[in-house]
């Protein structure tokens, strides 16, 4: 065996073991112990696995090599963790030698240490890159999945980065926005100015600023923006991060809500006014009645029939006032809850008008004159009209006209038909309505300050307005203080025009 090996040239830095198929050492190089983990166990006739534990598992390889099934087996850079100090790296190379195997071992520590430092750098760089990529990927995904619009600009406001939501919200493509000034999107100069001043204090955060913006197609948007400043790699060159949320829908809902609240407040006001007014309006006639009853109780025996009569008269008068007040309140109440309806039916207009005028004339007495001016073309004609609504309109307007006219005053009532519209004009020469009160004319219980002690509920014109509205008609008022008032009511004749 030795003689065989002596023919081989084995360089000085290589050691060897010659092994039989059971890994028993048949021969060894003189200094092979320096590579063994347990040098004391290196001996001819010993199991090589005792001194070289890493040979556990190499049985098959050795056998295959000896059998000629495998040419050789090469294991690069084996080291042991049990080794203290600088590690020793050995290359193992199994080859066949006669009917045995030779394990050639070479110290490759130097090259392996070098390799290690190269690999170390490469792997660290790769790990860093992979972590960076993962986090970039992650951030990108977050940004692109954000529901809020994101803009990042340079210090001077040039757009550098945008996300999907920003493109969708404003209707621009990425190409159209990158490089453009942010002012293209945010037109609110005040906000941009405030944002740019933050350059000074980058800890700050401008939040919740509502900005009116425009889509590419011109559509309006209300966007709630926040802005913060981030430091870029270049010292003194910050970037601005704008995040915008479309709050148009919310704003509109808010407006609607405010409207509803306003309406509710109005209704509440109305209710309180209603209660105070009605109680007030009822108190006067009630106390009058009480007073008259008192007087009658105490003095009826002493008084003449005439005097008693005047008190009974007053009681009747007060009761009538209260009844009409109650009627008006009921009408308004019904209109308020939508129970007052437009229900037209055939009506002989001239007869109806004459009847109403006569009625009012009767109440007004001979001191006043109501002049009804009917166009002859109306004679005897029948129209589809809502008698009830018409009655509400006319009795109130005519009663008012009379009530606020001076003694002996005349009320002109003109009725025309033109293009399927019924035009009713009621003109008096009464006290007139102050300009400031004209816009509140149709509000419940509103009464102008110049009414003096002329009694009234403040409901008549509200009823008129409600009836005209149900009719989809129009009412206008022209009035001058001390000169008179004209109400013009126009009602469509062919049912309700489509709104």
């Amino acid at each position, binding site marked *: 065996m030795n003689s065989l090996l002596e023919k081989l040239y084995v360089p000085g830095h290589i050691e060897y073991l010659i092994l039989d198929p059971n890994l028993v050492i048949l021969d060894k190089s003189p200094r092979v112990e320096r590579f063994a983990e347990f040098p004391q166990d290196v001996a001819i006739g010993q199991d090589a*696995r005792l001194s070289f*534990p*890493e040979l*556990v*598992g*190499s*049985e*098959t*390889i050795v056998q295959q090599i000896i059998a000629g099934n495998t040419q050789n*087996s*090469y*294991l*690069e*850079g*084996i*080291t*042991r*963790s*049990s080794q203290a100090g600088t*590690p020793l*790296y050995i290359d193992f190379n199994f080859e066949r030698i006669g009917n045995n195997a030779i394990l050639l071992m070479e110290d490759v520590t130097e090259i*392996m240490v070098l*390799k*290690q430092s190269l*690999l*170390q750098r*490469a*792997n*660290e760089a*790769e*790990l860093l890159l*992979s972590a960076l990529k*993962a986090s970039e990927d992650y951030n990108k995904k977050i940004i692109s999945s954000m529901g809020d619009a994101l803009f990042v600009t340079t210090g001077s406001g040039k757009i550098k980065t945008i996300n999907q939501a920003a493109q969708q919200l404003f209707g621009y493509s990425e190409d159209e926005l990158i490089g453009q000034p942010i002012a293209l999107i945010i037109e609110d100069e005040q906000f941009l100015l405030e944002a740019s001043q933050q350059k000074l204090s980058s800890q700050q955060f401008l939040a919740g600023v509502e900005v009116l913006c425009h889509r590419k197609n011109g559509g309006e948007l209300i966007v709630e923006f926040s802005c913060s400043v981030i430091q870029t790699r270049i010292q003194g060159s910050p970037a601005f991060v704008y995040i915008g949320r479309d709050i148009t829908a919310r704003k509109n809902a808010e407006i609607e809500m405010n409207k509803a609240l306003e309406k509710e407040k109005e209704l509440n006001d109305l209710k309180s006014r209603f209660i105070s007014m009605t109680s007030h309006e009822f108190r006067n006639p009630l106390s009058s009645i009480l007073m008259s009853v008192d007087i009658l109780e105490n003095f009826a025996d002493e008084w003449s029939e005439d005097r008693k009569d005047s008190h009974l008269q007053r009681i009747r008068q007060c009761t009538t006032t209260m009844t009409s007040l109650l009627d008006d309140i009921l009408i308004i109440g019904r209109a308020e809850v939508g129970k007052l309806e437009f229900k037209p039916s055939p009506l002989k207009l001239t007869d109806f008008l004459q009847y109403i005028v006569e009625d009012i004339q009767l109440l007004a007495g001979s001191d006043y004159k109501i002049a009804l001016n009917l166009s002859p073309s109306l004679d005897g004609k029948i129209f589809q009209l809502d008698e009830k609504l018409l009655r509400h309109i006319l009795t109130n307007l005519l009663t008012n006209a009379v009530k606020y006219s001076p003694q002996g005053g005349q009320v002109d009532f003109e009725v025309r038909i033109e293009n399927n519209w019924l035009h009713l004009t009621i003109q008096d020469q009464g006290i007139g309505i102050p300009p400031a009160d004209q816009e509140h004319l149709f509000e419940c219980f509103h009464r102008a300050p110049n009414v003096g002690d002329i009694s009234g509920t403040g409901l008549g014109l509200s009823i008129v307005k409600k009836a005209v509205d149900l009719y989809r008609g129009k009412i206008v008022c022209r009035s001058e203080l001390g000169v008179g008032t004209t109400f013009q009511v126009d009602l469509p004749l062919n049912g309700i025009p489509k709104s």
Partner: protein
Amino acid sequence: MAIISKKVCMIGDFGVGKTSLIRRFVERQFSDQYLSTVGVKISRKIVNLQHLEVDLSQEIKLLIWDIEGQTKFKAIASSYLQGASGILVVADSTRQETIEHLQDHVKQFVAINSNGMIAVALNKVDLVDPEDIEQIRKNMSFSEHQVLGIYNTSAKTGQNVDHIFETLAFKIWRQDNR
């Protein structure tokens, strides 16, 4: 009773924590520093199988081959895997590509040693949300019958480290003693 020695290999991509798992198992230590392995570094540890089966008073000496991790430029040398009774295939749960490579590593080993036992370690679970780990596990499966199971491990916290080595050792022993 003679103590049995068995060769097991750690394989997987670079930086997944092969060395750290061994270090935790053998030396009960962990370091956050990364020192990449070149060639192969061999460690030893005697495992008492009593941990797994109470009646069993059997010890097994594992020779653990910590093999240089696979990189884009270098595959794992198959010669290292020859004669291994089992392998521990390791992936880094924070790096998807290392998980995707598990299958290739398993195949490489099975091609060399169709009888060897295989344990799969999803390492560094301390860095990942348990929910995500669940999802990762759902997305993977191994058809090879040699695969004992997939273990969530952490060399840092020690989670499942002893367990995975001991299980591997036990299955290797049982295969020889059926």
